[in-house]
């Protein structure tokens, strides 16, 4: 690093700057693994992805291969995907349903509850060898909130629900779309790499300042499809009012009045005339269940939520669940899914998925331009020794409400990141 602080926060001078070393230096990445990914609640998956006893998904989370599964009693469990004998993966498939997990190297096998139940030639081990001593290891903590399952590699971490702080309300707003409070991950994962530091996608996921210039072709698409775009009010950049909020512990959100259509429950011409009735029916159900006011929040606001450090729930043109990991200081891997209410009719589900694809994903009309933007940032950051600071002070001089095009929410992420990272390492 360059001997300067990683984050410069000077409220009196109205300066908030991020040291670009944080986005390029491999030593920062190494520290992040220990101080962020080994200390924070990190998203593994959603309960709906494993339904019955034996269902599993394998995922790499915080650099560890994990098995995310249902045990013999159909409880959600997470195991380290590594044999107690020599360490090989005990499950090599991406997903499926299993009666247990076996390491093919020497044949040690484990049941769904993680117990070691088979060791070929067991009699050759000394008498002190006891299979009960070698179950599959679980991360120190596995907890869930409203179906979202997280692990923590720090046994002493605060409980998940407490750590989520103000993010709980925003997760609730997403889950409230479902009459029974049950959402599900829809089949089909988008998994791709971006040649950029992972924190640039944190910023981009709820940076509404970039919408007009990065996504003009998407806005044109909506306009051409008959979506009404109001002229921004004075002091605004976007057609609708929106705010940025810090939710505590590095979690943050942009919360804005929708102008671009929502499968729950705001019709736009892109969805087609035939979807109109269904969307009004969804809205009536929301009002009946939640009352006018909360129904309006669920149906008429778009919310991009960051759950620190690397889970994003974008409740906009559809609901996206997106998580991403550093592969190197200048490269990340992204996984994204669509989330919908379990009760959704096939017709409403089709609208949701179609609406997802107009904006989001590696073949959408917007995400590829985000990817390009982040890669262009990373390329430009090669000048970090000459230009060490990124500027993030929008809205800083203002009292009260912060707009979604201000940067309070980005600062919230960086302040928690900075607090966890501790003292900068001298060069």
């Amino acid at each position: 690093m360059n001997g300067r602080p990683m984050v410069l926060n000077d409220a009196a001078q109205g300066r908030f700057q991020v040291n670009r070393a944080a986005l390029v230096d491999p030593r920062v990445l190494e520290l992040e693994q220990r101080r962020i990914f080994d200390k924070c609640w990190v998203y593994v998956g959603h309960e709906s992805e494993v339904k019955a006893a034996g269902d599993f998904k394998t995922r790499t989370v915080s650099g560890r291969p994990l098995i995310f599964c249902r045990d013999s009693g159909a409880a959600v469990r997470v195991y380290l995907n590594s044999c107690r004998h020599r360490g090989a993966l005990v499950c090599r498939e991406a997903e499926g349903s299993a009666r247990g997990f076996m390491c093919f190297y020497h044949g040690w096998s484990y049941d769904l509850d993680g117990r070691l139940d088979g060791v070929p030639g067991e009699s050759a081990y000394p008498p002190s060898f006891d299979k009960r001593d070698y179950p599959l290891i679980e991360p120190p903590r596995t907890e869930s909130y409203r179906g979202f399952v997280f692990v923590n590699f720090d046994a002493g971490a605060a409980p998940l629900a407490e750590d989520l702080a103000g993010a709980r309300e925003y997760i609730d707003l997403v889950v409230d779309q479902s009459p029974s409070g049950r959402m599900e991950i829809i089949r089909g994962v988008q998994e791709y790499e971006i040649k950029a530091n992972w924190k640039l996608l944190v910023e981009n996921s709820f940076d509404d300042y970039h919408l007009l210039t990065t996504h003009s072709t998407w806005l044109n698409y909506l306009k051409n499809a008959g979506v009404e775009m109001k002229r921004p009010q004075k002091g605004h950049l976007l057609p609708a009012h929106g705010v940025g909020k810090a939710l505590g512990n590095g979690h943050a959100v942009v919360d804005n009045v929708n102008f671009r259509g929502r499968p729950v429950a705001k019709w736009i011409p892109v969805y087609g005339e035939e979807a109109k009735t269904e969307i009004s029916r969804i809205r009536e159900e929301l009002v009946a269940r939640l009352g006018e006011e909360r129904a309006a929040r669920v149906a008429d606001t778009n919310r991009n939520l960051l759950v620190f450090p690397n889970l994003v729930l974008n409740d906009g043109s559809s609901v996206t669940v997106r998580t991403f990991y550093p592969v190197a200081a200048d490269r990340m891997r992204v996984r994204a899914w669509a989330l919908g209410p379990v009760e959704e009719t096939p017709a409403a589900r089709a609208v949701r998925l179609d609406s997802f694809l107009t904006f989001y994903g590696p073949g959408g009309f917007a995400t590829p331009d985000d990817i390009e933007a982040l890669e262009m940032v990373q390329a430009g950051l090669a000048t970090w020794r000459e230009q060490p600071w990124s500027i993030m002070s929008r809205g800083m001089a203002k009292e009260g409400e912060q707009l979604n095009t201000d940067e309070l929410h980005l600062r919230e992420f960086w302040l928690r990141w900075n607090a966890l990272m501790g003292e900068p390492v001298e060069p």
Partner: protein
Amino acid sequence: MISREQVEDFLYHEAALLDSWRLDEWLGLLTEDARYWVPPNESPDADPAATLFIIADDIQRIRARVTRLKDSDAHAEYPHSRTRRMITNVRIVGRAAAELQVVSNFVVYRFRREERVREYVGAYRYTLRQVGGELKIAKRVAVLDALELGTLGSVSFIL
């Protein structure tokens, strides 16, 4: 009866149009109800009404995609990627009324400045229809062999 050779000529012509970014002419090869799909890597046979795809365009969105790609503000493809398509193993696997089911293998090499080549490998599944004596594309599905997009990144061009 349409021969495989005629189908091959048609697919080579389509590939040439796409490689040279003559996208309006390419639109002329499509039927009025054409669809263009790129299924998620792990579920090549899925239905986009129930599964999250990479791309699932109807004709309106195909046209909107072309409008977007011709705009210099489509940053991911400006400047345009250079592509080179290899279309092989062309087979007519079904014939019914005026429609042909055609499959082929493809390799699309994609080049961008200061970047290693990206190789998109897979199979096309076409529904071709005879309209007024001409072959048209009613549906083209590009199924990728890669187990995830991974380092291929985005599919911002017409695959």
